[in-house]
């Protein structure tokens, strides 16, 4: 038993320390994930909760994973979903205004900003029309820089499913923003 075995206690402490270091290294990434999805204030409030839950679940972390972020984002996503349920916002779709409202402009680019400004409302509408699962894969890949396989790990779905969802989401987004397939999007949502 670790409680009565000094070497085992030391090993457990070392493992805990290593895991805390891992969480420390990714705390900014987790906060950014939370801020993109739930807004800056929610991120401030929930970051500590995500770290504590990840620590409590550290025995489920697989050291063979090349990148811990998908696993951490999965935990963060669960915390966010509880936050949304508590707030009665109805899920990720309702959080779209918050995540799109979080802004920074570190590298001014006039042309791009003008273009983005003109199309921002369309983009938000298009995002809201995606199926929840498809939108989640798209945002994990586009915003968090995960591969489809890593997004699959974060969401607990097969990699092939993530790839197909990503392909579908990208296609629909492009169609919707091109203004060519509003009707198709409606049928896509119902499918």
């Amino acid at each position, binding site marked *: 038993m670790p409680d009565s075995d000094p070497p085992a206690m030391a090993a457990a*402490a*070392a493992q*805990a320390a*290593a895991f*805390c*270091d*891992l969480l*420390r*290294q990714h*705390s*900014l990434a987790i*906060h*950014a994930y939370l*801020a993109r999805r739930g807004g800056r*204030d929610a*991120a*401030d*409030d929930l*970051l*500590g*909760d995500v*770290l*504590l839950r990840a*620590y409590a679940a550290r025995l489920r972390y697989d050291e063979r994973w090349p*990148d811990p972020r998908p696993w951490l984002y999965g935990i963060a996503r669960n915390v966010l979903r*509880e*936050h949304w349920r*508590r*707030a*009665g*916002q109805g899920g990720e779709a309702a959080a779209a205004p918050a995540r*799109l*409202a*979080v*802004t*920074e*402009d*570190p*590298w*001014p680019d006039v*042309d*791009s*900003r003008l*273009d*983005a*400004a*003109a*199309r*921002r409302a369309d983009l938000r509408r298009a995002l809201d029309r995606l199926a929840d699962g498809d939108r989640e894969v*798209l*945002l994990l890949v*586009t*915003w968090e*820089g995960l*591969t489809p396989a890593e997004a699959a790990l974060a969401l607990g779905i097969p990699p092939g499913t993530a790839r197909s969802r990503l392909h579908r989401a*990208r296609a629909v*987004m*492009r169609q919707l*923003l*091109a203004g060519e397939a509003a009707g198709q999007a409606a049928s896509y949502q119902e499918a």
Partner: protein
Amino acid sequence: MIMDAIELLGRLGQVEPADQAVVDAALRGLALAARRDTGQDITAREWPGRPGPRAAAPGRPLRVRRRPRPVTAAVAAVAVAAVAALAVVTGIGRAPLPRPAGARPPGQAHPRPGRVTVSGPPRGTPSRLPTAAAILTAFSRSDSDILRVTKIVTTAGEPTLKIVIWVWPADGTAGDGTAGDGTAGDGTVRSRILTFYAGTRLTDLGLTYPATAPTPPVPGWGCDDIFSRPRFAIPPAAGAPGRLTDVSYDTRSWGRATVKVQAANLPTAARLRACLNAGQWLVAGHGVIAGTKVVELVTAGGALRLWVSAATCLPVRLRSSGPDAPDITFTFAFLAPTRANLAMLTPPVPAAFAKRPI
């Protein structure tokens, strides 16, 4: 230039990094949990501080592959403008008004925090607020005061984070020259943000930034976002130009810098009026907080509860809680802008602290 939809999406996903104090507080909570779990202070030397460069954790090789960010450029200018406008929705003139009857004497907060006891209509059957006009008028009378907000985040029954925020003037618009010490309003907003973790002072920030012009509220928008503190970023970044004083008690150092500020989101009469008219806030009951009679309001979705003083109609407390979620309580106090209270807006710099660049 027509931007690809996915590239545009990537641009809109850019967020500014977390505040140092927020990360520090979260990491301290983690350190506390690890200490409780292992009986050893295994992380003390690591905290606080921003996450350092990636390194292999002992006994756990990390072969982290980071793909380049798909997009590196800016977010839409209109989005920035919209956020700035919506985050500081103000609609009240700056003309000084007499204090409501029963208001606290100058220099005294009203009311003090305390337990909440609620009576009145059963929960779940909120009604439209019949005294909205009284509440809104009283709100407007606090505009020239100093707003002090104490935010406490409780996770699993334990308070993990406490932030005390001062903002003057209380409505965030241009000062009106009613300061008790004769100081004229100069068109700036002064704010201080003092952060504690487990009773220990972590950081003390002072921010000065331009006051905003009153703008009409957007009906129904942001009714669940009654208050948020001002935020800053090191330029280049979006926001109004501001001055930051950053006192770090962890590193026993301090510094000053020019920053970009996103203004505080403040509970103004115009905002509450819009929310009431839109049916977003409803009466849920009556109660007493620290001996003060209060009216309890609740958002239509039930996510937030706001107590306002029955005597002065000033906001007293805002609470957000739920199962498996942090319990977050904001306690509001309006302080008269006396010389002593205005001095609270400036973070003191201990003499022993070293100056550092920001």
